[in-house]
């Protein structure tokens, strides 16, 4: 297998430049939607929900909302974004005729997607801090978790982008994979709430370990499952990263 080189940074820089030229059109979505969901679920629905493990409902959902929106950021960037650059604009075709190889393009896209997750997660963390939902100093590690989960979700998304024929395929990716994770990864309710079948499926969903880690950081309490979650994220990220290097080369160098 061919590996990527430091040159991936050139593609990362290209995406960064484009993002910061258009950031004012991206930023409202990045900030407003998490606030809406925090208010709607935390305060609206939360008024009807009793304490969970001694917490207010809004405090319970806060860590998972960071995880979810960091996931969305990375996933949107590396599905619609990557596919648009690849197929509509043929940007990658131009780039792989320079000293960058396909593997550098893949790594650049994945690390850029992870950067989007980091930015989104950090902004939401700041908003939650403004809502006085943040108490533990451990939350300072949340941006790192966002970056790590960003690598995982971007890798999955780039892999998917490298094998699908058209934009329409992403509808399935979102309705069958991303949206279910949003609801069934312990963001809004403890997983123990669900029947056993759904619980088992939840443990496979890659968002679940991220929610577990974020919640532990918010509470400042760590159990063995945090370590397991970390290992699971690294493993999933590594597999999809490696596979997408291969599938993207197959797609771009015909």
């Amino acid at each position, binding site marked *: 297998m061919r590996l990527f080189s430091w*040159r991936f940074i*050139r593609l990362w820089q290209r995406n960064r430049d484009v993002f910061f030229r258009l950031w004012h059109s991206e930023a409202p979505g990045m900030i407003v939607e998490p606030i809406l969901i925090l208010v709607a679920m935390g305060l609206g629905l939360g008024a009807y929900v009793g304490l969970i493990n001694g917490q207010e409902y809004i405090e319970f959902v806060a860590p998972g909302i960071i995880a979810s929106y960091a996931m969305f950021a990375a996933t949107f960037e590396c599905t619609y974004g990557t596919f648009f650059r690849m197929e509509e604009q*043929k*940007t990658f*075709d131009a780039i792989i*005729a*320079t*000293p960058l190889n396909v593997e550098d393009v893949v790594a650049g896209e994945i690390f850029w997607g992870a950067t989007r997750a980091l930015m989104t997660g950090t902004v939401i963390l700041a908003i939650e801090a403004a809502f006085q939902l943040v108490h533990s100093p451990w939350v300072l590690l949340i941006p790192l978790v966002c970056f790590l989960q960003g690598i995982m979700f971007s890798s999955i998304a780039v892999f998917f982008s490298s094998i699908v024929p058209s934009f329409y395929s992403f509808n399935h990716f979102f309705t069958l994979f991303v949206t279910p994770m949003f609801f069934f990864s312990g963001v809004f309710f403890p997983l123990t709430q669900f029947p056993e079948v759904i619980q088992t499926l939840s443990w496979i969903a890659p968002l679940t370990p991220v929610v577990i880690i974020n919640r532990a950081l918010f509470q400042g309490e760590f159990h063995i499952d945090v370590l397991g979650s970390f290992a699971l994220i690294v493993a999933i990220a590594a597999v999809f990263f490696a596979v997408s290097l291969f599938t993207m080369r197959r797609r771009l*160098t015909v």
Partner: protein
Amino acid sequence: MVIIETQHLSKKFKDLLAVDNVNLEIEEGECFGLLGPNGAGKTSLIRMITAVSPPLEGDIFVEGKDLKAYPRQVKAILGVVPQIDNLDEDLTVLRNLTTFARYFAVPRAEALRRSQGLLGLFRLEDKADSRIKELSGGMKRMLLIARGLVNQPRIIILDEPTIGLDPQTRHLVWQQLGELRAQGITQLLCTQNMEEAAVLCDRVAIMHLGRILSLDTPQALISSHIGDRVLEIDVNAADRDKVVKELTAVGLEFIDVGNTIQVFNIGDDGLPEELKKSPGRLRQRPATLEDVFFKLTGRTLEE
């Protein structure tokens, strides 16, 4: 010195053999033309040489380096101007060049200097801050060529650089390519435009169905395949068989193009007597590369 060498190069797409055992030696500093109809394999061949498409078989050496082993080093000295516009629509005109320079690790200040120089050269300085969508087709092509030069390549590879351009823009492109040639930059030019090949290229390879059919200077190709002049005989259906019989009898090479029969290699001794009495209208004109092209690749459409 040979700067690009291909050995037994082949490429297959499913059942189609797009490039079939091509051996080429391109000399440093020359403008080398690849001439062929659609589907001849020109684009497939240059995609392999630019390391964006792996060959089925064979090897490519650029400046003696094996492309398989050193793709980055080879790509660093190539300037590629693709047929399909793949400019970066998310960036302005100037940013397209500076960002591209960054892929080649050109330092920032130098990238800006080169980019502005190239915009001037291709008369795009007023468009520096425009979006790609605001450019005309001709301007986009100019920008693509400018982008191919931003790394100061030693070899520039152009796929149909003037297709669809108006005559003014086409001549501006030819003029720039002539300048590059004068600077000693090797050019590999894919084209279907005979005039372009004749004007720009030192040597031309005529390609058809994945193979190189003939390779020489444009003038030598014309004289060896066609001769200096082409005799055209306009015939009606009734006379055609008679003329064809006469031509076959005197042993002249010809092709039958509907209402006209084109006769090649008629030599300097003037026309055979039989032909002068031919019922059709006779006409002589200088032979061109197009005659060679048609003679070698045929007149039927291949896709």
